[in-house]
C-alpha cells in the first residue's frame, strides 16, 4: 500500500468492553470430569491383530527410531509355505514418535493405532510391550461401563477405540503387478506359439522395485534361493549379478522361469491385499537377457578328484546334481532315454509354455562345463544297471514317474495314455486327432493334454467345428489343477464336466470309439481322507467323442533294477523311496531325489533334493 495507514490510538474506555465476559461460561474443560473425545484418526497406542499378522518384519525395517523389534513367540506355529512366521512386533514407547509409518507399510493391515494415549507408571520397563488386540486379549480391553479415565494405562484400555488405520489407496507399497503381456486367446489357440511374451527392461525394473525385502519367499522356496538379492540386482540394472545369485542354488533358470510352481509367490507378503511380486517372470527376464551364461558366470570346475558318478535321468534333479558335482571336480555321466535333456520337462509341458530352445540353452550350458551326456540310452536295455554299479563310484537315481496310469474300465485299451500323447506330439511325429476329444482327469497334466489337443484340432481341421471336453472326478472346489491354468483353458473354449466318473467306453459296430458313459460322483475321499471314490450308479450321462485320452496320474518304472538289489530298497508308507538326510538310500552307493522321493512333484523340489544329494555324494566320495 502506498498511502499511509491510519493509526488509531484508541480511547481509554475501549478495553472495558471485555467486562461482559465475567458473566459467560468459561471455555476450559474440567478434566477428567469432562473428558475430551479424541478425533477418529488419532494416533495413539498400537493394536495388532495376531490372526492377520504374518511376522514379516516390515514395520521394524521402516521405523526411523528403531523402536520395533521382532520377538519369537513359542506358542505360535511357523508355516513357511503360506508365508507365516512365529514372530510378532514388540514396541519401545521410549523411542516411538507415533508417526504411523509402520501402519502405512504393513502389508496385511493388521497393525493399527488406537485412540488411547495415557500411560503413567513408576517402573520404566512397563513402557515396552507387545501389542495385542481385543480379540486375543480380553483382560486389558474393557467396555465403556467399566473403563475409567483415572486408571487409564497400557493395561487398562477401552474396547472399540480404533484410530488411525491402513488404507490401500495411500499405502507405501504398490499392490498391483506390472501386467505381463500375453498373446491373445483367439490368436494363441491356432498354433504352438509361446503364450507369454516377457518383460522388457523398464517393466522388469518397475516390477523389481515393488519388493519389500521381507524374505518370507526365501523360506517358502524348497530350494531356498536368494530371491530378494537377485531382485535387488535387477532393480540396480545388473542382470549379471542377478544370474550369479540364481546359479548358486538353481542351475536351470530358463526352464524354471517358465514352469516353476512358484511357491514363493504364495508366501509373498504383498499377495495378502494385492498381487505378489512376479518372481518367476523376473527369473525368466534374467535368463533371456543373458545370451551366454558361461562368460558371465566365469566358473571353472575344481581340480579333478578322480571319482566317477553316474546320473540316471536328465530331468531337473539329474541336471542339477550333475552341475553341482561337476563344480566340485568329479567326473559325471548322465544317461537318458530321450533324444535330449530335460526329462519329464521335455515331454510334459506343451510348446506354448516351454519351447525346446529354452530347455536346450540350460542343458548345453551344463554340458559345456564338462558333463558327459549319453542320450537315447535306456538303462536296462542299452546298458545294464549292474555294469553301472560296477564302473562308477556313486549313482544318483533321478528317474521320475514315466508310466501313465489307466482307469481300467471296460474297453479302456482303446484310449490313449497322456504321456504317450504328449511325447509323440512334442518330439515325435504329430498324432492325428479326432474332432471331438474327451480328456479324463482334473490335474495339471490333464489341462496340458486338453489345451494341446485343442490346438492340434484347430491346426488339422481349420474352419471346422471341433470341441475338446474334460471329465474329472473332482468338482470345482477340489480340482487339483492350478487356478490360472483352468482360467486360460476356459478362455480357449474347453468344456468342463466336473464331478463325473468314467463307467465304460462305448464302441460302435466297427470297434471305434463312439463316446464315454459317465456316472455321477458322490464323494472322492472317504472319512480318513484316503482316495476312495463312490458314485451314484443310477445317474448316468453319455458324452460323445471319437478320441479319449486318460490323464489320471503316473507311476515309476523300476524294471531296470535287478530283483536282488530291488528287495534291499526301503520305501515309506506313501510308497516313495526312503532317503536319509544326505539323500542316500538304503543301498550304500545309490542316492535318489526328485519325484520318486518327495510329495510336491515339481521341478524346484527336485533341485532342492539334488543339492542335498550332491553334498552327500561328495562326502561319501571323499571318505
Amino acid at each position, binding site marked *: 500500500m502506498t498511502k499511509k495507514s491510519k493509526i488509531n490510538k484508541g480511547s481509554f474506555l475501549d478495553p472495558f468492553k471485555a467486562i461482559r465476559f465475567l458473566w459467560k461460561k468459561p471455555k476450559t474443560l474440567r478434566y477428567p470430569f469432562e473428558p475430551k473425545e479424541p478425533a477418529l484418526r488419532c494416533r495413539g497406542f498400537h493394536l495388532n491383530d495376531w490372526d492377520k499378522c504374518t511376522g514379516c518384519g516390515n514395520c521394524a525395517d521402516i521405523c526411523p527410531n528403531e523402536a520395533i523389534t521382532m520377538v519369537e513367540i513359542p506358542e505360535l506355529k511357523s508355516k513357511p509355505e503360506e508365508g507365516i512366521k512365529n514372530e510378532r512386533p*514388540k514396541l*519401545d514407547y*521410549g523411542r516411538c514418535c507415533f508417526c504411523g509409518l509402520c501402519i502405512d507399510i504393513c502389508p496385511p493391515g493388521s497393525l493399527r493405532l488406537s485412540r488411547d494415549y495415557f500411560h503413567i507408571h513408576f*517402573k*520404566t*520397563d*512397563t*513402557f*515396552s*510391550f*507387545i501389542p495385542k488386540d481385543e480379540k486375543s486379549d480380553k483382560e486389558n480391553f474393557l467396555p465403556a461401563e467399566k473403563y475409567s479415565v483415572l486408571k487409564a494405562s497400557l493395561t487398562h484400555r477401552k474396547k472399540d477405540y480404533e484410530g488411525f488405520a491402513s488404507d490401500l489407496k495411500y499405502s507405501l507399497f504398490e499392490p498391483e503387478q506390472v501386467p505381463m503381456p500375453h498373446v491373445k486367446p483367439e490368436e494363441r489357440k491356432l498354433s504352438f506359439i509361446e503364450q507369454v511374451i516377457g518383460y522388457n527392461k523398464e517393466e522388469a525394473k518397475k516390477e523389481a522395485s515393488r519388493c519389500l525385502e521381507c524374505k518370507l519367499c526365501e523360506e517358502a522356496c524348497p530350494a531356498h534361493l536368494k530371491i530378494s538379492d537377485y531382485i535387488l540386482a535387477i532393480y540396480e540394472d545388473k542382470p549379471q549379478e542377478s544370474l550369479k545369485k540364481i546359479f548358486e542354488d538353481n542351475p536351470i533358470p530358463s526352464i524354471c522361469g517358465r514352469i516353476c510352481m512358484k511357491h514363493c509367490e504364495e508366501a509373498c507378503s504383498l499377495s495378502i491385499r494385492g498381487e505378489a511380486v512376479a518372481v518367476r517372470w523376473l527369473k525368466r527376464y534374467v535368463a533371456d537377457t543373458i545370451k551366454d551364461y558361461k562368460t558371465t558366470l566365469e566358473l571353472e570346475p575344481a581340480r579333478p578328484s578322480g571319482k566317477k558318478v553316474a546320473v540316471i535321468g536328465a530331468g531337473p534333479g539329474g541336471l542339477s546334481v550333475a552341475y553341482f558335482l561337476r563344480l566340485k571336480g568329479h567326473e559325471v555321466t548322465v544317461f537318458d532315454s530321450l533324444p535330449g535333456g530335460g526329462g519329464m520337462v521335455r515331454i510334459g509341458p506343451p510348446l506354448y509354455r516351454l519351447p525346446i530352445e529354452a530347455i536346450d540353452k540350460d542343458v548345453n550350458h551344463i554340458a559345456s562345463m564338462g558333463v558327459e551326456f549319453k542320450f537315447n540310452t535306456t538303462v536296462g536295455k542299452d546298458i545294464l544297471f549292474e555294469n553301472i554299479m560296477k564302473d562308477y563310484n556313486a549313482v544318483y537315481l533321478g528317474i521320475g514317474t514315466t508310466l501313465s496310469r489307466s482307469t481300467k474300465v471296460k474297453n479302456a485299451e482303446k484310449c490313449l495314455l497322456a504321456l504317450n500323447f504328449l511325447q509323440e506330439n512334442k518330439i515325435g511325429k504329430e498324432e492325428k486327432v479326432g474332432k471331438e476329444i474327451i480328456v479324463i482327469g482334473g490335474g495339471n497334466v490333464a489341462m496340458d493334454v486338453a489345451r494341446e489337443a485343442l490346438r492340434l484340432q484347430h491346426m488339422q481341421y481349420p474352419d471346422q467345428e471341433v470341441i475338446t471336453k474334460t471329465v474329472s472326478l473332482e468338482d470345482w472346489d477340489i480340482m487339483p489343477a492350478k487356478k490360472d491354468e483352468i482360467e486360460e483353458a476356459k478362455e480357449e473354449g474347453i468344456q468342463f464336466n466336473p464331478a463325473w466318473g468314467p463307467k465304460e467306453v462305448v464302441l460302435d459296430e466297427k470297434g471305434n470309439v463312439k463316446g464315454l458313459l459317465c456316472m455321477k460322483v458322490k464323494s472322492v475321499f472317504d472319512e480318513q481322507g484316503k482316495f476312495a471314490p463312490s458314485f451314484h450308479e443310477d445317474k448316468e450321462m453319455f458324452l460323445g467323442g471319437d478320441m479319449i485320452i486318460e490323464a489320471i496320474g503316473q507311476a515309476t518304472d523300476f524294471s531296470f533294477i535287478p530283483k536282488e538289489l530291488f528287495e534291499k530298497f526301503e520305501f515309506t508308507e506313501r510308497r516313495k523311496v526312503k532317503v536319509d538326510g544326505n539323500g542316500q538310500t538304503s543301498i550304500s552307493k545309490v542316492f535318489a531325489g526328485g519325484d520318486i522321493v518327495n510329495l510336491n512333484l515339481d521341478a524346484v523340489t527336485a533341485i532342492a533334493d539334488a543339492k542335498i544329494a550332491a553334498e552327500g555324494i561328495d562326502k561319501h566320495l571323499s571318505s
Partner: protein
Amino acid sequence: MISALKKELESAFKNIQIVIPEDNRLTITAPKDTVLTILSFLKDKGYDHLALISCTDWIEEKEFELVYIINSYGEKISIILKSRISRENPQFITTIPVFENAEPYEREIHELYGINFEGHPRLTPLFLEREYEIPPFRKDFDTRKYVEEFFDEIPFVEENK
C-alpha cells in the same frame, strides 16, 4: 533476463562455469580466489540478499565445497555460487565486507566443519558445548560410536510379565 546476466558474468570473469538448470536458477562454479569479486559484482547488479552459506563434505574427492546462495528482493532468480577448497588444513576468506549478515553462518561452519575464515571478528563456539576431536558434521564422524563412548551404556528395557 537470466541469459543476459550469464553473458555478462562470462565476459567479466574467466575460469568459471555457469549452468542454468531451470528458468529461475543460475549455478556458478568458481575457483576460490575469485569468490569475493563475483559476490561484489552481483551485489552491484541488484542481488543484495545473502540467504545462506553452506558447506558440503565430499570425502572421496578430499574437498570441501562452500555454497553461497544469493537472492534479489524483487525478482525470483536465485543464484548459487560454489567453490571448492582442500580438506587438509582448510582456509578461506571472510565475506563480511560484502554482506554484513555472513557473520553467524561462517561461525557455524567453523565450529561444525573446522574451516578457518581469515578476518572474521569472532570465531567463538556458537552451538556446541564441548570440544570434539573431529568436527562433528564431517563424514568420518561416527555418531553411534560417539554415543557409546560418551554416554554410559543404557541397559535395554525388559518386558513386563
